[in-house]
């Protein structure tokens, strides 16, 4: 039996297949479809200090082999997450990454203090790349190297558990952004968040999203994700969770070879909730044929 175990930033996982933030809630719904214990890990919905209602609907649109979303971080707030959501997840033998989002460095620090010390949290994923919330200059925090440094550092100071910084590929200097996060103390990186996009219904002339602009995800963006992971791997040594358009074991392998230590499934879970399970099966099969090989060995193993 091929062994798919990996260890990222000290966290042991049964396999490298995780669920991406915002595409699996807090695990409850998918637990009605498959056994969450089969997952390598789960990254729960972006959590904010206060409960957030999220953006006005419509919040999603279908695009060529992808989708746009502008959920706007609807979530019950950090206290409900700690008191109601984490206890549910503690029933499973499953590393839990909590994705956090704030409006300021201080909010990120406070979230890190609360969640980075909470029971049942294996790691924090710091979302500084959400296109669905308005930051100071209506951009993403990760588009400003100063913010990347300051927020990562503030979170790192408060958190007992490893800190993964989640970045977007929509930056002018991606390699520098990656290095800045690691210099500030990031234990790992999550790559990539959605790309900012938009769609218009030509019949009504209205944007398909009430929020006008949203985040593009799904198979369409896979080449951008692969490129980001490859570039990050060439710059820094920390583990990378690769994501963006993963829908099959082949896609997962492509990310691992590009330099990911683990992968997360997002949009593909919507059209096939069993995607993570079939990916794990596919990886098992792949490594069964190559007993001397392993998930960690193929990391970054590109032939030129």
């Amino acid at each position, binding site marked *: 039996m091929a062994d798919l175990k990996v260890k990222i930033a000290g966290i042991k996982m049964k396999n490298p297949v995780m669920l991406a933030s*915002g*595409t*699996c*809630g807090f695990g*409850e*719904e*998918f*637990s*009605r*479809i*498959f*056994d*969450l*214990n089969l997952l390598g890990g789960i990254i729960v*919905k972006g959590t904010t200090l206060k409960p957030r*209602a*999220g953006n*006005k*609907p*419509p*919040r*999603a*649109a*279908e695009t*060529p*082999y*992808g*989708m746009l*979303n502008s*959920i706007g971080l*609807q979530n019950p707030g950090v206290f409900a997450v700690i008191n109601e959501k984490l206890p549910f997840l503690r*029933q*499973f*033998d499953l590393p839990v990454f909590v994705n956090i989002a704030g409006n300021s460095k201080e909010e990120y620090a406070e979230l890190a203090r609360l969640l980075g010390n909470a029971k049942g949290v294996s790691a924090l994923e710091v979302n500084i790349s959400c296109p669905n919330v308005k930051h100071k200059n209506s951009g993403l925090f990760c588009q400003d190297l100063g913010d990347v440094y300051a927020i990562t550092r503030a979170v790192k100071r408060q958190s007992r558990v490893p800190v993964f910084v989640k970045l977007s590929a929509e930056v002018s200097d991606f390699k520098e952004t990656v290095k800045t996060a690691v210099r500030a103390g990031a234990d790992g990186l999550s790559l990539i968040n959605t790309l900012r996009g938009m769609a218009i219904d030509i019949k009504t002339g209205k944007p398909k999203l009430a929020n006008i602009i949203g985040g593009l995800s*799904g*198979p369409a963006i896979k080449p951008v994700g692969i490129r980001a992971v490859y570039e990050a791997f060439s710059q820094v040594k920390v583990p990378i969770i690769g994501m963006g358009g993963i*829908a099959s074991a082949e896609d997962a392998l492509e990310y691992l070879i590009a330099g990911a230590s683990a992968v997360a499934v997002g*949009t593909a*879970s*919507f*059209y*096939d*909730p*069993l995607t993570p399970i079939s990916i794990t099966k596919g990886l098992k099969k792949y490594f069964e044929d190559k007993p001397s090989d392993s998930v960690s060995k193929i990391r970054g193993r590109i032939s030129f």
Partner: protein
Amino acid sequence: MKKQKYNIQVFAAGVLSLKETPGGYFKMKLAASGIAKAARPGQFISLQVNASGMPLMRRPMGIFSANKGAVEILFKAAGKGTEMLSRKKQGESVSVLGPLGNGFSVREELRHAILVAGGYGVSPIAFLYEELRKRKITTTVIIGAKNKKLIFKEGFSNPIITTEDGSEGFKGLVTERLNAACAGFACGSSAVFACGPVPMLKAAAEVSEKHGIECQVSMESLMACGVGVCLSCVCAVKEGMDTGYKRICADGPVFDSREIVWRT
């Protein structure tokens, strides 16, 4: 560790039959015994129309009937997805996810139900109608459409038909007929169940509320996941003093009309 109950299935369901019906619908019968056993009226399933991934999202479809291992849906070829679905052949298979959603809730005390259907809303209403008949609850059925050609009334006995152009039944919208029906049955043991376009649901809600009758509306939205994880399908609801959002796929699609914040 808690014993989990896997009560949402996803699998390739065989197409048992596909027929065109009056009203311009396609009726598709799928081999889906697990879903057929569990399904309640008002619930839906979500279908992957093309294994190649184009279109990307599943298409949600109300359950029209659930009997002897098979589930039926009734759909319009409205756009590219449903168009593709309408060209499936008997013997092919379609990936199905379900049963999804809460379904209508039929109180123990219910004695008379007023069913209001517009467009493909007639599909879950037909399932509910069967269920109510089994439970010996009397019904008034009101079916509205633009014109005669768009009417599907199979299986209903003596439905009230309204058409906007008067080509069949009463001329006009369902509102007036519903008003009359509510006037006749305004008491705690009746309820209105409505499924159709939002303006119709809103009107049904207003009429029912005016008469003090409970009204359950089945809402709809584009759905990316159908199971409650993506938060894309929400509608605005009254939450205490605030407006919040509920997921149509998982908290609905059926809501108490008084909960909904109708968008104009």
